[in-house]
């Protein structure tokens, strides 16, 4: 195997693994956050506006972990710096 094959193979495998493993924790976190927020809204429907606003901001913060993984895997697939270095 020459280095181009190795880099291509590793990049594709790692891109898949990055998004697969990286989305587990944010998914659990978002699930917990939404469950907790729904519980709070059920207890205090008057505060629904404040709770949902905070929830959205919080979800975006949690989600950004998954987005980082997505960006990394996109870079590995479409803008791979090592690949470009080899191909010149």
């Amino acid at each position, binding site marked *: 195997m020459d280095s181009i094959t190795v880099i291509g193979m590793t990049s594709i495998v790692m891109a898949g693994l990055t998004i697969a493993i990286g989305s587990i924790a944010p998914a659990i976190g978002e699930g917990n956050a939404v469950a907790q927020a729904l519980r709070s809204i059920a207890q205090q429907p008057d505060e629904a506006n*404040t709770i949902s*606003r905070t929830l*959205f*901001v919080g979800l*975006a913060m949690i*989600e*950004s972990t998954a*987005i*980082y993984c*997505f*960006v990394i895997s*996109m*870079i590995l697939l*479409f*803008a791979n710096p090592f690949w470009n270095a080899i191909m010149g």
Partner: protein
Amino acid sequence: MSIDPSSIVYFEWGVVRITATLVFTWVTMLLLTVAGLLLTRNLTDENNMSKSQSILEATLITMKNQIKSVSQQDPGKYLPFISTLFIFILTATILSIIPGFHAPTGSLNTTIALSLYVFFAVPFYGIQSLGIKNYLKEYAKPSVVMLPFNIISEFSRIVSLAVRLYGNVMSTSVIVIILLGVVPFFFPVVIQLFGILTGAIQAYIFAILATVYIASATSENQGG
């Protein structure tokens, strides 16, 4: 397939490079400027105000109240900055339903520029309301040990703001392109609609986070 509209170059002359990001940013800016000029042309404080004026005022009042409830401070000072960020990102996202339009927020260059605005606005408003000495003291709170971490968090904010917006907008366009190859016609439309929703939420979150960062730098007792 490209993951950044900046890789599409229309015109290149020396160091001047006109990319798709730049062109579509100009289109968005032009649209907003023209809309702003047209909407504010016949302002009145009589009872018979036009529909566009009352929509404009309702939007501004909503934004003002949102900033007020998040920052717990007088919103007037922050309104121009925060609402400009929000309106620009929202317009850029909504315009992306037009075929051939690449949303400028789908480029890392634009989002880094936007988050650099926030990065410089935080010390600007902080020094304006606290004075330079008190503002710098905020970095050494709760103890001096936290000083490097506070400085690092200032910089990691730019990266996280920029990559969050870029990733969200870019992911939608990538998914649409992939789906167009697999199941054309119906599903790409649904994903595109979903992308507008995500983009609107991201515009809101970008504005809210900017408000939160500025508010934490301007309030004395809470500390960033």
